[in-house]
């Protein structure tokens, strides 16, 4: 070890890294998983009981109102999981329902509180503004970069963003000069969530998953996370996967549980299958914005606690309503 150079840290942020896993922890975890093709189908409630533990760090697939695993979210609330730390990578209705159900004690934020064009969430504002939920701010890009580092198994990654801002000051990032070029970059710690919940277009019973359209970040989240619960619109034969291997986003050996859950992203948008259920989300937002928190509790009673599972939720929605979302997706009959 011949050189005594050093590499100056010109700034250190004050934020806390809310995920305590290192890439080495994630490796040890991966080592114990079988590489065999095992049938991983199980009821959703069983999967949540087994794999989502109080106090864990949760990553959620999809983006905003797109391809988010809402069926799984409702089940986590139904089981009253506690003290989850959530990766808030454009987190919208997914995190909102979790927070309404009092499941969340910390969030690493890129985008929360907002429902994009639909305005702000009352539920999230109350919990963040009261200080009861811990926050560390990042950006959508840097949350992805942290996952990329976690997927690679490296403990940190340089980025060209956040530099000079309060977003940086309140993060755990450190600014250093590149030892090759002298350019300043921000180093951020990698991210290895305990568990990823995601919703795919199709999977086989072993967990090989395919997604249609933009992958957004599910590929990185899957590679970075220790455990994965996949719901999908359809469970297909492995031969279907083998016909288009280029289309596989997550290989089976990373996956712990597979559940067929048609409409599993409702009220969100499943590209090429169904569009947003906008009135449903508006009603939900309105309940959350009511000054009386019991209004939201009543919503949860009606749509989560009083139902045994997601199939009952779908029954309650009714076929007509769901069919209309398919028409909307295919631009039949207005936006």
């Amino acid at each position: 070890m011949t050189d005594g150079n050093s590499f100056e840290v010109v700034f250190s942020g004050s934020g806390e890294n809310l995920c305590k896993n290192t890439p080495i922890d994630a490796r040890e975890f991966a080592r114990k998983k079988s590489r065999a093709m095992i049938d991983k189908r199980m009821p959703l409630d069983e999967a949540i009981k087994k794999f989502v533990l109080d106090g864990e760090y949760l990553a959620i697939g999809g983006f905003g109102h797109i391809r988010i695993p809402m069926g799984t979210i409702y089940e986590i609330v139904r089981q009253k999981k506690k003290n989850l730390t959530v990766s808030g990578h454009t987190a919208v209705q997914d995190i909102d329902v979790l927070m309404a159900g009092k499941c969340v004690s910390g969030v690493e934020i890129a985008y929360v509180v907002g429902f994009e064009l639909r305005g702000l969430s009352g539920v999230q504002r109350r919990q963040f503004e009261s200080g009861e939920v811990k926050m560390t701010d990042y950006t959508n890009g840097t949350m992805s970069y942290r996952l990329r580092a976690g997927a690679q198994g490296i403990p940190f990654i340089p980025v060209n963003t956040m530099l000079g801002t309060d977003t940086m000051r309140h993060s755990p990032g450190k600014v250093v000069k590149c030892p090759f070029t002298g350019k300043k970059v921000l180093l951020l710690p990698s991210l290895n969530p305990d568990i990823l919940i995601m919703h795919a277009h199709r999977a086989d019973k072993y967990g090989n998953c395919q997604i249609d359209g933009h992958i957004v970040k599910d590929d990185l989240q899957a590679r970075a996370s220790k455990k994965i619960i996949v719901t999908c619109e359809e469970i297909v034969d492995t031969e279907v996967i083998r016909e288009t291997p280029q289309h596989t986003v997550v290989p089976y050996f990373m996956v712990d549980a597979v559940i067929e859950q048609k409409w599993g992203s409702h009220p969100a948008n499943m590209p090429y299958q169904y569009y947003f259920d906008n009135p449903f989300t508006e009603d939900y937002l309105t309940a959350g914005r009511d000054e009386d928190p019991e209004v939201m509790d009543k919503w949860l009673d009606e749509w989560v606690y009083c139902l045994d599972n997601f199939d009952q939720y779908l029954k309650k929605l009714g076929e007509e309503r769901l069919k209309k979302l398919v028409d909307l997706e295919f631009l039949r009959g207005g936006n």
Partner: protein
Amino acid sequence: MVEYTIKELMCIVAARQLEDNKSAAVGTGLPMASAMLAQQTQAPNLLIAFEAGGVAPQLPTLPISVGDSRTIHKALMATTLIDIMDIIGRGYIDYAFLGGAQIDKYGNLNSTMIGTNHNKPKVRFPGSGGANDFASMAWETMIIMDRHSPRRFVEKLDFLTTPGYLDGPGSREEWGLFPDTGPSRVITDICLLDFHPKTKVMRLIKTHPGITIDDVKKATSFELEIADEVGINDPPTKEELRLLHEVIDPNGLIFPH
């Protein structure tokens, strides 16, 4: 005379700022509508990229989200969020097109919180989303601020979410942001601003019809630069309004009929 709302005017003035043969990464709402309008007018070759992975879609209608399936409809590429960020980092995106809750004289934006304690904000906003990434790495940042008022155009932000010129000339470079980048335009409900090339302070260049320079000064908490000749933005043309209502937002999502 053509009737129009201020929101329509803002969208149209913003669209007019975009040059042809350039590329834009756009946020939800007005930025998206402006970029789409520019494609229908002076910038037919404007490339639009969406944060969630959609590149150059043939947008059948205004997307409600930067990730929704409209953003990949007959797109040239449907990729990942990190790929879009990399593409911006590599210098392929000319315009970051954003909004915010507060802005300061150097074009820094707050979309995180109001208050003084980050752990217990008075009002919690969404945070950066992709805004900080876009404004850090794209060549130019275009900003739409929908209410120009002293509480929003402030001397000091409650939280600096997204970089403008940070502490002024040279400050972006000092922190390691890419050279020759930064905000270039601010479009508000009363005027159009750019940034003084030397001082990097926001500069009034055009007011909206019926607004005076003094109105703008009063609506701004910090001291603005004022261009030698402050012009007046042309009101929307019939064609611009038609495109907005019939082509861009036929369902009245942003611009109700």
